[in-house]
């Protein structure tokens, strides 16, 4: 029975499902490491998903779709930074505002500009030569038969980890998130760093949205993300603000999801309600254990006031 459940396609599905969580989660990690909680991720994902889809639909180019999504993500990221950093608004509330804006605006634009669900060609799967053919344990199918945004997401993990832990920029981000006053005294421009990380968070959230609408699903519908962005925020806590921790969380959540779909598909007698609940229950349990060893940025959600 285990062979029936743990097939190569289930692991490949895990990789696909994890992609938007990784992209959005990495962006949120940078934002939170600098001290800014961004709860608007899901709204930015929706806007990114819409603009990527719409651009791909009218131009026929998925690459242009990604560029459009990145542009929208940057704008919304800067808007979030303006609200959270410059205006010093309460970050949780303003994040919800950004989410509601993205939800409503993407829905409105979809109705006005597209009208009815359509599909786009989007990014095709890329079979990596020499690797996608590996049949041993289904490695080829699991790791090397995906669209380009899947590869990008997984390559960004070591890159993000390197930037955060081994570069001056990473040091500044962490310093700003731990003790902004001290960082300021050392000559770090706290406002500029926070603007950069929150803008980056917006860009990554929009890319996560694009990974849904023009790569994984190749369709757009109102509220396409179904709250996926909020799970990505939870995975940042789960991952203890570390890129590899986010990878672990995203893979765990996606794996349990893929397994429950497979269990259902092969007709095992497990109530679907329990199966669907499983990913969330396991994530909550893992979150409880993870939070005991928390490495939360000390200045998270605290606006920076010079001289405080």
């Amino acid at each position: 029975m285990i062979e029936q459940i743990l097939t190569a396609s289930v692991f490949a599905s895990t990789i696909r499902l994890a992609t938007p969580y990784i992209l959005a989660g990495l962006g949120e990690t940078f934002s939170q490491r600098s001290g800014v909680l961004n709860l608007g991720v899901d709204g930015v994902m929706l806007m990114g998903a819409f603009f990527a889809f719409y651009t791909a639909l009218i131009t026929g180019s998925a690459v242009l779709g990604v560029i459009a999504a990145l542009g929208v993500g940057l704008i919304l990221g800067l808007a979030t930074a303006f609200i959270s950093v410059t205006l010093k608004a309460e970050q949780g509330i303003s994040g919800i505002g950004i989410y509601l804006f993205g939800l409503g605006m993407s829905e409105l634009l979809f109705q006005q500009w597209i009208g009815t669900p359509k599909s786009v060609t989007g990014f095709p799967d890329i079979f990596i030569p020499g690797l996608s053919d590996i049949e041993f344990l289904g490695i080829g199918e699991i790791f090397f038969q995906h669209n380009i945004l899947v590869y990008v997401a997984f390559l960004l993990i070591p890159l993000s980890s390197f930037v955060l832990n081994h570069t001056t920029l990473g040091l500044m981000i962490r310093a700003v998130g731990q003790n902004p006053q001290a960082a300021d005294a050392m000559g770090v421009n706290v406002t500029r760093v926070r603007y950069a990380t929150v803008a980056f968070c917006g860009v990554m959230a929009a890319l996560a949205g694009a990974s849904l609408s023009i790569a994984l699903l190749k369709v757009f519908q109102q509220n396409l993300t179904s709250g996926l962005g909020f799970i990505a925020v939870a995975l940042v806590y789960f991952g203890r603000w570390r890129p590899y921790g986010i990878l672990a969380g995203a893979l765990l959540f996606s794996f349990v999801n893929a397994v429950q779909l497979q269990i259902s598909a092969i007709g095992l007698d497990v109530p679907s309600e329990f199966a669907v609940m499983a990913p969330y229950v396991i994530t909550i349990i893992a979150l409880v254990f993870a939070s005991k060893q928390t490495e939360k940025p000390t200045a998270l959600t605290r606006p920076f006031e010079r001289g405080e």
Partner: protein
Amino acid sequence: MSKIRFSAVLVVLVLLTGILSAVHAQDDVFRVAAVAPSATTDLAFSQSMFDALTLIQAEMGEDMFQFDFQDGTFIVDDAAVALREWAASGEYDLVIAHGSQYGTIIQELAPEFPEVSFAWGTDVNTFGLPNVFAYTAAAEQGGFINGAVAASLTESNVIGVVGPIEVGDAKLYVDGFKVGVAFVNADINVLVTYIQSFSDVTLATEAANAHIANGADILTGSAQMVVGPIAVAVEEEALWFGTQSSQADLAATSGVLFQVYRWDVILNDMIASIQGGTLGGESYVLTLENGGLEMQISEAAEMEEEAMEVLQSTIEDYATQIVSGDIVILPEAEATPEPQATEEAGS
């Protein structure tokens, strides 16, 4: 002189009042307001009602029929606000709550506004209230036909079904589909996944991918999240069978057959009842017999004329047997309930 002026003004006022009253009396525009849980472009449940109201408006004319439609009100409290405002305004002849989650609100509002006619679905329960219509769809009927046709087309003998939550017309459709498949070939393996969401396109897409990975060459599903599975069917060159609304445009060459809800059939009855002074107390069921369920072959399927005729004939044959009772799809306890008419019906 001033008395003459006063009398003249009085006469003018009386005349104006009379004219305005006459104009108001002649305002026989039938006004409907409706809430629905998802978008009017969901290719599923909400769109089916929006399309029906649009069709009625086209038939009756905009000067005789007008409607307001608030979509995306999956949150019941949001819908409740709209429903109450519409009922309180007194401007609408019929207020529709298109979603089974709205039943409790209607049960509360209808006694509060006895002069307003309400309709809700999918259910057949009018709560014994004289100003409530209830409606549902015998989705298992089209489900059976879809299943039987799918069974005759599958080459892998594996068919995948992506359902939302195991309730209401979605469950009836899936149950009917499974019976239809077994009716033709009991050896065919029907893989069913309920993703416990009406809107999670990502999960629905991966459920469809799981079915394809397990050998399915035909997919079907219900609710607005089917846009994901349809995209999978198109990409994997599997066949797609739909329900609630036509998804032919999105499914392109993968689309085969769609069970379309024609709510206009029962809405026309409701409108006639309300215009005749009966505000509710009756329930309706869309069936193949009353034309409320329509089986539409996809025009994009690029079938040859001969194959199309065979398919049409097969569909009609099944429909005839279902209507006559020769084919009993589900046991009575599991099938769509019969319509109800309460004794208190009428206003």
